[in-house]
């Protein structure tokens, strides 16, 4: 599935909810269902330090596609981490580099990607793209 299709899918899923509470509860569920990151990978070099919450991001190349694994110490942040991993993982570097993140606005979670929020998510997206760029240049 392409990144665009996955993003459409996510927008559809979130459009089922009438209010913020349901949206957040779903996001918390997504956070909880995110495959656990290997504790060995939760090292400082994988850590994106936000002022409010922390995010760990690991990437590796499998069959020409980047696989991201990630985690956060805050569950709401982790929910969005899960959404981002679902949208970008298992894709070719060029597709990740070209991908947009507007879908986060569309599912009503824009505030979580504000730099002033300092939860590590803005840096996480930047880091995902940097990994993609690094792998792309190796191809």
């Amino acid at each position, binding site marked *: 599935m392409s990144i665009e299709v996955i993003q459409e899918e996510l927008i559809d899923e979130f459009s089922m909810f009438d209010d*913020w*509470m349901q949206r*957040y*509860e779903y996001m*918390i569920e997504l956070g909880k269902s995110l495959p656990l990151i290997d504790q060995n990978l939760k090292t400082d070099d994988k850590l994106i330090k936000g*002022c*409010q*919450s*922390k995010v760990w991001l690991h990437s590796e190349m499998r069959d020409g596609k980047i696989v991201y694994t990630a985690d956060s*110490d*805050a*569950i*709401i*942040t982790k929910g969005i981490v899960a959404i981002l991993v679902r949208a970008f993982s298992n894709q070719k570097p060029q597709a990740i580099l070209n991908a947009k993140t507007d879908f986060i606005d569309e599912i009503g979670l824009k505030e979580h990607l504000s730099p002033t929020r*300092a*939860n590590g998510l803005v840096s996480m997206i930047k880091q995902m793209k940097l990994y993609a760029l690094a792998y792309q240049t190796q191809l």
Partner: protein
Amino acid sequence: MSLNIQKIRNDFPILSRKVNGHPLVYLDNAATSQKPQQVIDCIVDYYSNYNANIHRGVHTLSQEATDAYEAARKKIQTHFNAKQSYEIIFTAGTTHGINLVANGFSGILKKDDEILVSAMEHHSNIVPWQMLCERSGAILKVIPMNEEGILVFSEYEKLLSEKTKLVFVNHISNALGTINPIAEIIDKAHKVGAAVLIDGAQACSHIKPDFQKLDVDFYVTSAHKMCGPTGVGILYMKEDWGNLLPPYQGGGEMIAEVTFEKTTYATLPHKFEAGTPNICGGIAFGAAIDYLNAIGFEAIEAYENELLKYATEKLLEIEGLKIYGTGPDKTSVVSFNIEGIHPYDIGTIVDKLGIAVRTGHHCAQPIMDFYKIPGTVRASFAFYNTLEEVDALVNAVKKAKMMLS
């Protein structure tokens, strides 16, 4: 005397707005207070009627602005019972005041002199002293605190020696709400000949310190936590220190005479007030002090204690909730966590319910390291908050707990 809270609330236009569809419950007063109409009117009046640069114009507007600015200084002097009005230096805020003093001591401190700071300082009362130590070779030592968030006085006494030159403690901890025994701290420091700077950013909205009675050397605070505007504060320094310390910044206002060969500096307070100051801010700071005094600090303190007691009781009914800062002397700040839940998550959910609290390390990472936590949720109350708002907070936290567990 009891307060007419509804009447007071009507003075604050912002308190009637809605946030995320809910009436705003503003419980982030330790970060900044809201502003009453009286202060807002004062700002509008200044810019509408007598905006001019001060201290140098002969024209009427300049004279009016100068008179109002100096009247505010006098008002602040009276409020804090400083001996002289020129011991009150207008600054851009608490952090600016601390940096001004730290810079002044650069040339005074020698290698191996010692500086004491408390374990519960805001970063702004740690970093400038670390920088000062780097410049001067002085050594920074830390007065420890205990599990309740109280400074260990006996350890403080042990740290004091003839090597101690400066002691820096906050009057009230922003992250915990603990009121430090500053009178005793100052007294002990003076016995070994050390000077004391008190960071009063958190204190002056709750209590009214008496500078002469405290015999404090330096005291810094900000207007914006006292219902005044942002970007203005004061540094009180005893006259002797004011004469001894060199100027911080060069520029207009702070000079007596300038030639290319030599410049002589102005006397206090202008020596430390280079450039055009925040004129409007200073005047509005005065208006804020008038506003608080009209309500009365005794009444404010008594009412805020009531809010604190009620909030503490109600929050502790929530299973798994732990409060940080549990000493007997504290102001209306409740810093807490719920077991197994990240403070950021709680803050996010309660915001959705219209409640403004602070989450994170509150610029006091050493305190968080002490408790081995990433941060806390901090609810801080002001005299315009109500018991119903405490209930709203407690219900919101319960809801957040339900969603997040």
